[in-house]
């Protein structure tokens, strides 16, 4: 099948490296698959043209003559003018034809892209300086919830994300699912994702947005429809009250320290709006916009000194004692 051919093609040998969950070639989304096959068609057609030009140059090099020079051996007679005109004319016609064909192919592939723009968006994605805020809409306010840096979508059904920016221009791009769209302040864009296979797909901000543009990753987790419903249900619930005493102490530290001024944990007095929503942070695979995997050790390191990993991040280093740090870490890890 034409789609399997690419893996044998020139890229295969070089596409090593451990995991390609952020690659346009790993086309798991409907849009990404369309674009990938178009890319391959263009590559083959244009590659052949390039090869033809290289063959022509090779013939010229082989067919050359030794020096010496002199003014007298320059030929002005323009012999073979008609034949040359024919050659150039036909090559030009071939170029025009190729360009026309490729343009038509490009138009056919772009039709679905502009088709669904008018539909309402199921998810609101807001770009901040260096993390992603994700708001799931729902019929009633109780069904709406906010999370960050990880978006779960059901496999098989198209989901439209509305793209807004809270500060500078960012660009939402998950190559395995679809092309990129910019998040521009004062301009509402949207994008449609349709995952064909369950899996975890990584994306990254693709428009330069300042100091930590390099660490502004996000994950799209495509779940089976029932798994998605279960996840959504869990996310809608408020944070569970901590039972163990060290987690309770952690909850108390979280509220009394500067954490509460920027972060929200639904069900607790912490209601800050400027940092990511941590109500179910325990369910996320990564923290710091896909900088560190969620393990107690990396979470504690992140809280103690976020600038060590992501210098310039807006989260200040909070001065906590050792026991307070362990308590808060235990509390946050437990927020499933």
């Amino acid at each position, binding site marked *: 099948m034409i789609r399997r051919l690419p893996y044998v093609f020139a890229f295969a040998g070089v596409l090593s490296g451990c*995991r*390609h969950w952020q690659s346009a070639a790993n086309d798991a989304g409907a849009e990404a698959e369309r674009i990938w096959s178009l890319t391959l068609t263009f590559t083959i057609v244009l590659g052949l043209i390039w090869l033809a030009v290289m063959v022509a140059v090779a013939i010229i090099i082989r067919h050359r003559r030794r020096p010496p020079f002199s003014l007298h051996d320059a030929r002005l007679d323009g012999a073979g003018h008609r034949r040359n005109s024919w050659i150039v004319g036909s090559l030009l016609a071939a170029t025009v034809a190729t360009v026309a064909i490729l343009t038509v192919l490009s138009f056919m592939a772009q039709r679905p892209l502009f088709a669904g723009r008018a539909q309402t968006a199921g998810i609101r994605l807001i770009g901040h300086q260096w993390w992603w805020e994700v708001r799931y809409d729902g019929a009633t306010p109780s069904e709406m919830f906010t999370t960050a840096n990880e978006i779960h979508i059901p496999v098989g059904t198209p989901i439209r994300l509305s793209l807004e920016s809270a500060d500078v221009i960012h660009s939402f791009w998950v190559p395995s699912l679809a092309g990129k769209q910019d998040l521009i302040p004062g301009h509402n864009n949207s994008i449609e994702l349709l995952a064909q296979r369950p899996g975890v797909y990584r994306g990254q901000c693709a428009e*330069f947005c300042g100091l930590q543009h390099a660490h502004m990753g996000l994950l799209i987790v495509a779940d089976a429809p029932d798994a998605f419903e279960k996840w959504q249900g869990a996310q809608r619930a408020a944070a569970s009250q901590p039972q163990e005493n060290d987690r309770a102490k952690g909850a108390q530290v979280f509220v009394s320290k500067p954490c509460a001024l920027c972060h929200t944990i639904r069900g607790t007095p912490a209601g800050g709006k400027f940092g990511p929503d941590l109500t179910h942070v325990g369910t996320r695979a990564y923290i710091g916009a896909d900088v560190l995997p969620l393990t107690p050790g990396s979470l504690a390191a992140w809280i103690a000194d976020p600038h060590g990993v992501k210098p310039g991040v807006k989260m200040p280093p909070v001065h906590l004692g050792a026991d307070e740090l362990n308590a808060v870490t235990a509390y946050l890890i437990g927020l499933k």
Partner: protein
Amino acid sequence: MPPATVMPRPADQRDTGLEDAELRERLAYTWGRRPGIIGWLMTVDHKEIGRRYIVTAFAFLALGGLVAAIMRLQLARPEQHVVGPDLYNQIFTVHGSNMMFLFAVPVMQAFSIYLVPLMVGTRNIAFARVGAFSYWIYLAGGVFLWVSFILDIGPDVGWFAYVPLSGPQYGIGKRPDVWAQMITFTEVAAMATAVQTIVTVFKHRAPGMKLTEIPLFVWAMLVTAFMVIFAMPAVMVASTSLILDRLVGTHFFNPSEGGSALLFQHLFWFFGHPEVYIIFIPGTGMVSAIIETFSRRPVFGHVAVIISLVATGMLGFGLWVHHMFATGLPELGASFFTIMSMTIAIPSGLQIFCWLVTLFTGTPVIRTPLLFVFGFFFIFVLGGMTGVMVASIPIDLQVHDTYFVVAHFHYVLIGGAVFPLIGATYYWFPKITGRMMSERLGTWNFWLAFIGFNVAFFPMHILGILGMPRRVYTYQTDVGWDRLNLLSSIGAFILAASFALFFLNMLRSARVGPLAGPNPWGAGTLEWLADSPPGPHNFDHIPVVTHATPLWAERESLPIATGISVNRREILITTLAEARPEIREASPDSSIWPLLAAIATTIAFIASIFSPWAAVWGSALIGLTLIGWFWPKSMREDEE
């Protein structure tokens, strides 16, 4: 000082009836300049200013290459700490801005300043003092950017400085202002040079040189000059309104007060895309000149190449939105720009076919310049192919702002402009310095550059497909980019070695290279009629032109025009179409005023990023120096 043997001169000595030796001596005195540092600062000779431009542009190329090497060091392995994010952002912005504004466009215009007057058969460029002013402003702009970078106020918002990141709220401190004002400097210099080139080609051609007999390199520089005139005001308006937004609180790009962030992108890319053609088209002109000489026959389809140059120039203005496909534009607009972006490949294709047929039907002789032209074919055509790919919206949505695009534009800019530029330096070095460059070092230079370039930049295509975005100061280990980035960094250092070899070859050959006569390559265009290096007056007699390659057409004896003054600086003004002589116009003498005006302009520009009132007293200061410049210094200048 006047030559000892000169007899007392009558008021208006003509060149008829003077033997060659005395004629040459008097012309050299009339067109020469005072020796010493003051004379060096006052010169308006297009050759001295052209040489200064070239040396300064190559210096900025070296600096830009240095910071590029630091970028590749930082990206060689994941999560490195060679430079922090803040310094890396400054480095990639300065690398981009330096290469686009301080190296690529100026070095092409430098070759134009040096060569166009020689190739159209005149004694100096039009508005020679404006040329001196343009060089000083260019130098001031370059030093301003690099000193700011060293003072840690280098721009850190990318060479395109999108709002709102470069805007008043998120562009912290004076860094984006440094970028915006550096643009003002370099654009003033580029537009002044463009007007000079156009007037020189339109009005100062040697008698008889019809429009179709103008050499292809000069046509390329003419089309480039027109593109500069119509493209650069767009970035001037964009950078001026950005400075106004940041300094006096206007709201051009403030979405909450009626402005729009996309307005800046439209303004910038309306200049941005013609800018890359301003860099590429001179490259094609250089390729035409080299192919013509080394395949021992005029380029096939001279007029066809001219038409395709003009077509590329005009189409270049119609496709800027392909830089903005990901900003969510309406379908009709985006589709129009896909068509335009695809069609611009056709004129470039035509040029390449004409060159191939020229080489095929000629008898090509491989020398270093032609080696670089073959490198140009290999690399530029590949870049052109990826260009057609990014012209299609769906593909562009995947590869926009990724390393695929980084690979594309390095292939078309280094392949399309820098390889021909190095070839052209080997080709015209004997004319500029009188000495040949070493062919052995040249061959080494080529192969190191060719291999280094491809090893450095081809893997970036694959990195782009693997999802690596542009302008990231580091990347994680679990996305599989580390092997290709390491390979790319190794290639970058081989490329750096080739450039070091290139500079070494130039510096060494300038002193010890074998002497080259007026026409070492047996070429056909007029610049090879003058000596190497040409005297201050270029030609003893102004030639009369009958063919596109006059030296090949008029082998026995060259037709010349006489009756031009010897003790006054006179330029022959000819009509636009058939170049019939009309007027013997005066050419400006050496003057210190361009330097003074440039100093005043520099003070005004730099001060006006700190206070808006600086623009007011600054322009008063500039006005004073311009009056001093304009006021006639002697009765002779009134040309009664």
